[in-house]
């Protein structure tokens, strides 16, 4: 009897430790992920500013509507009340879905950035490359978070991107580049917000940060 109780006790202790450790690890993971997403959004914002510095006025007229972003079909919470009601795993999957949806478009942007008809296309090119790297890192990190959270279902939405080229002429290329970038900027903000909500939810031990 004593042996059995002892064994039970040991297992309980181990599980507690595991959970505790996991919790700590999860917290740190989310902290790191939110840092990455923050950087992602900052980069996209600066890119947009760079583009706007020498954007032809006619291009603004030609700009597609934001609802034409390929990720607009994804159902996301639009305000705080809605967002706070979403469970963590759903929030995570939303973030991951969005992130996943932008791998290909960013690759396209990266390839087209060098030939962009813009005076600051070098800066734009380097920043786009940096964006790509960050997205890959965040993707990997969120996968870890997902594994750590131990969700059973992995319901990632598929948001396909079928555009292969930004346009044949310089103006349309520039306009499309700008449009795609604006879509990404918004989506990166979404991801950042969701992850920060998740972070504060997990950081019960550090209330001062949230």
């Amino acid at each position, binding site marked *: 009897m004593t042996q059995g109780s002892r064994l039970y006790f040991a297992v309980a202790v181990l599980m507690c430790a595991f959970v505790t450790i996991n919790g700590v690890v999860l917290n740190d993971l989310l902290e790191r992920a939110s840092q990455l997403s923050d950087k992602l959004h900052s980069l996209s914002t600066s890119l947009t500013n760079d583009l706007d510095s020498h954007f032809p006025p006619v291009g603004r007229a030609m700009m597609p509507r934001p609802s034409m972003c390929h990720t607009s079909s994804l159902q996301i919470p639009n*305000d705080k*009340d809605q*967002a706070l009601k979403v469970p963590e795993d759903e929030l995570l999957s939303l973030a991951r879905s969005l992130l996943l949806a932008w791998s290909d478009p960013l690759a396209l942007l990266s390839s087209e950035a060098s030939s962009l008809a813009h005076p600051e296309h070098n800066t734009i090119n380097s920043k786009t490359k940096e964006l790509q790297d960050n997205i890959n890192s965040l993707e990997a990190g969120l996968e870890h978070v997902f594994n750590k959270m131990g969700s059973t279902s992995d319901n990632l939405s598929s948001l396909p991107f079928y555009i292969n080229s930004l346009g044949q002429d310089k103006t349309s290329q520039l306009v499309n580049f700008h449009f795609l970038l604006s879509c990404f900027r*918004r989506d990166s*903000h979404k991801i950042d917000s969701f992850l920060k909500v998740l972070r*504060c939810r997990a950081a019960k031990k550090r209330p001062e940060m949230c």
Partner: protein
Amino acid sequence: MRNSGVVLILTFIAKLISQAAGVSAPDKPRLTSCRSPEKETFTCWWEPGDDGGLPTTYALYYRLENSETVYECPDYRTAGENSCFFNKNDTSLWINYNITVVATNALGKNISDPVEVDVAYIVQPNTPENVTAVVVDDQGPFVRVSWEKPRTADTRSGWITLLYQLRVKQEKDKEWEEYDAGMQKYYNVFSLHPDKEFMVQVRCKPDHGFWSEWTQPTYVKMPDYIPRERSLWIIITIFSIFIILILTWTLNVKRNSVKLCLLPPVPGPKIKGFDKQLLKSGKSEEVFSSLVIQGFPPTIGYDDLLVEYLEVYDNEEQELVLDSKDLSEVCMKSKSLSDCDSGRGSCDSRTLLLEKCMEGREGSGSDQHQYSQHGETSCTSTESSECQGLEPGSPESSDGRVKTWPVVFSSPQPHHHYQVEAVKPVYHSVPEILNRSSPHAMPTNYHQLHHQDIPQQEGRFSKPACRHSQSYNQFNLDGLDTPAPGVSPSRSLEYVEVQRVNPENMLLLRPLSDPNREPEGSDYAGEDYSKVKEVTSNNILLLQRDTYHQCVDDYSQDLDSQAGQCTTQQPPHPCKPVIYQSNSGMPQEGMRVMGNGYVDSTVLMPSY
């Protein structure tokens, strides 16, 4: 048709009338900004244009990006004049709002330019609240500024993340000192001047958004204190100790070179050409040979001064006691000309004769001439005083002096080359020159000197006086052999060593070939050496030779006045060896016997 035309005309007339009256439709309003303080609501403000003189109403209309429905602003009052407040229900994130403002008055309306707004990008929080600045005296007085988040911002759920910033300055300063506090709600400000009043302000910003306004300044007064700055002194002390340790260790490592630098070794005396190792090995002759300058001092003409004189050294009193006046002159001259060293062979520092020479001078009248180089001790017969010194009656026949004699002979080595006939030459000093008309007794009785030694000896010693004496003393007495009747040629030349002076003032010579022999008495090893028989009144050492005593006797009688040789077999008298030389025997000019008995050895001198 007519109606429309009438309407047109009427409208035109109305405009003209309104223009004349100063009223018009309102100008286009302009949306200035839209802001969301907490990412949940937002407010838009517009700027009305000219109202046209008539009361104008403004309406804001908006449209969401994915629908065509136009909504009007729900709240014009909350945010104040010319504003539109969108509450939570009307606010959606990540959606573009197309907002326009319409100004309407009696005469018309005007629509502003549309503005696209995404609420996510227009976040500007309210100012932080409850800013407090407290002076804390722990570890040096500093100011701890603390505040609270703006009331409306929900940072707890993570919906909004705020970063804080504060700034401090004195009232009179122009520039603010800014500090970033991150997400904290407190900050410690150090290094504020004591006894001064400071203003503190705080503001915040969302992670992606605009900075809030600064709070109202909070005043704080620093107390008057003397800064202890203990930590600074501690740091300075530790640093200097560290430096000292490093220096000490470096000095220790390099102590040899430091010692060399601070206390340079005193250079020892260096004599050019002086080889210490050679000196240590004992070959003193070679050591000093390098010091000797060839040809110095100049020998030319020097010979003239000394060559004529036999240098005789005796004690002071007896020096002047000479047979002839010339002797005394010579003595004086030689004395004056030379010092202890000159002409007496004491220029050979190797030999003890040098030292003994000094003794000899001080000593009483022992008739010792010390020609160190030649190993000759000669009591010049010309100087009878010397010989007198050796007479029994002489006060000091110092044994010590005599003992110096052997030294003269002690180095057989330099005499190697003396062996002309493979026989050791016998050195003896010639105090005076005998009248060599009858040399018959000479060869056997007298030691022969090889003047061949002269050049070699000369080469070795720098003092011509020595050379003089050398040459002087070295006669080749070979030639003496022939005239001596019955006298076998003194073929053998041996070294004679003065062994001692016996109490009767007898100079005991013994040949070097047999150092153990006691020449005293009658057991001669051979017939080639002579004993000192007696010292005549002239301070002449009479040599004695066993085998030829008869002849010697004869001879001695003849020459007693001039030179003394003791060649009898009588108990040896301390006689100085006498060099006799016949003119015929000399390979060179030979020695000229002067009238006063001195041997003129100038002829003997090889030309230098």
